[in-house]
């Protein structure tokens, strides 16, 4: 019941789900695609890391890199199957969303068929040590999760702010038509965006697998949490997603300590509904940086 425990747990949860939420937000705002296939990418990357750890090496950086890479591949697959054929067809948003759901159905059933329903565990990536700061015990996996995801987020945000590709993605977020006039290819950018967001999901998968097992359907809960965070943050806003993940992370750790695990989603959704009823565009509506349609 101590406050540090709640704080630390909140940050850890916020980090993992925040990655997925930011991925959902970036995809929505730059491609206009509501990608619900991240659940599949999550499981896919987890299995990728598992296969690597079994067949190649259990050396932690390799496993981590494998998860991230396989996640990126998953993103590229979704881009090639859904975004490329659909993006200039009528009714793209609904069809895109349903299409990613179809991919997620095929993908998770395919994993179930290939690997069987038994849960798989990844090797420990961050070792087994702990640090004590001011009377609080910080275990290695928690520190690793927080450091990895924050480094990834900062890298991506910096990259989007300063590089040529980042400018490309941001330009496409704002105005796809003008982007093509400037010489930005929508399809190629789609691959970059989906690759990067897939990599983020892959990282989240490897990080979460330190706590939970990998199974064909293990991506669904993170997906729903990530999507709810993105929703609260206001779809399309990276800043909003980060703030929302912190809020919901604390809400989750507070609820599960005070009330019990089964009320976690209830409090979270009460918060989400309350904020959305006041501001239909979520936290981004308060920050006022949402995608202008």
């Amino acid at each position, binding site marked *: 019941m101590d406050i540090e425990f709640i704080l630390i747990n909140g940050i850890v949860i916020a980090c993992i789900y925040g990655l997925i939420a930011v991925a959902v937000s970036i995809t929505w705002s730059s491609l206009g695609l509501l990608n619900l296939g991240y659940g599949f990418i999550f499981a896919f990357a987890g299995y990728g890391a598992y296969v690597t750890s079994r067949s190649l090496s259990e050396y932690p950086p390799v496993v981590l890199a494998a998860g991230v890479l396989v996640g990126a591949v998953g993103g590229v697959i979704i881009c090639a199957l859904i975004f490329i054929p659909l993006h200039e067809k009528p009714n793209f948003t609904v069809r895109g969303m349903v299409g990613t759901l179809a991919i997620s159905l095929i993908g998770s059933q395919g994993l179930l068929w290939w690997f069987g329903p038994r849960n798989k565990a990844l090797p420990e990536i961050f070792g087994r040590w702990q640090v004590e700061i001011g009377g609080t015990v910080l275990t290695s996996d928690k520190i690793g999760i927080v450091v990895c995801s924050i480094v990834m987020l900062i890298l991506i945000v910096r990259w989007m702010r300063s590089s040529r590709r980042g400018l*490309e993605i941001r330009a496409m977020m704002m105005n796809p038509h003008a982007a093509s006039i*400037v010489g930005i290819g929508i399809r190629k950018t789609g691959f970059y965006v989906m690759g990067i967001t897939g990599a983020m999901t892959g990282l989240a998968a490897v990080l979460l697998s330190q706590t939970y097992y990998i199974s064909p359907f293990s991506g669904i809960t993170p997906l729903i949490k990530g999507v709810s965070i993105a929703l609260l943050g206001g779809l399309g806003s990276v800043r909003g997603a980060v703030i929302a993940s912190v809020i919901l992370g604390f809400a989750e750790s507070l609820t599960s300590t005070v009330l019990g695990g089964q009320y976690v989603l209830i409090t979270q959704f009460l918060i989400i509904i309350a904020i959305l009823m006041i501001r239909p565009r979520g936290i981004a509506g308060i920050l006022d940086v949402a995608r*202008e349609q």
Partner: protein
Amino acid sequence: MHEILNVNGLSAGYGPLRVIHDLDLTIKAGERVGLVGLNGHGKTTLFYAIAGLTGWQRGSIVFNGREVGGTRSQGPGRYTHLIVRQGLALMPQADELFHGLTVEEHLDSGAFTKTAWKTRKQRKERVLELFAPLRDRLKTPVSRLSGGERRMVSIGRGLMVDAKLYLSDEPSLGLAPKIGIGVMEALLKIDLSGSAMIIAEQNVALLEGRVDRVIGMHAGKLKGEASLASSIKRRKA
């Protein structure tokens, strides 16, 4: 001087609407051409056809020695970025800005092609010399600019690359006359060695005496330059 653009028998439109009828046009390097015509007579559509943004098009467009036209009926904008990378700078009528980006980022985005990206600082300097008012607004998001400044950003973005062909669509539209003239002057200052420029305009007075030649456009066809001899010659060919 070699030909930058050679449009031959171009027809273009959107769905059942045909805007451009069998149009022929040749632009040589170093030329600054005015394209004059009323609203709805196909000036913008001609530009869009060159950039591959129309609903459908038919006929040949040879841009910089490469065929970019051809018969096409699907996916407006699918090949636009490739055409743009060959050296086309389109400054569209409705500005088409990225609302959340700053002025500086806009100018950077204009130099998006790989070669131009490396020298974007010098290019930015060059554009800022033309549009001095933008200099102290580099960090401002575009959505906070006035109409004239936005037009400057839009045109400046087009001027960031060493384009072979600049297409400026109604640069003075919706601006106060004085600012409009300023924008036009800036367009005229650009050095056109080895490249060409077409300025579409409704206001003929702004173009008079400032461009090399003026072509009229009426109901999807060119007029004004044609003569009987050239008509016969064209028909023979």
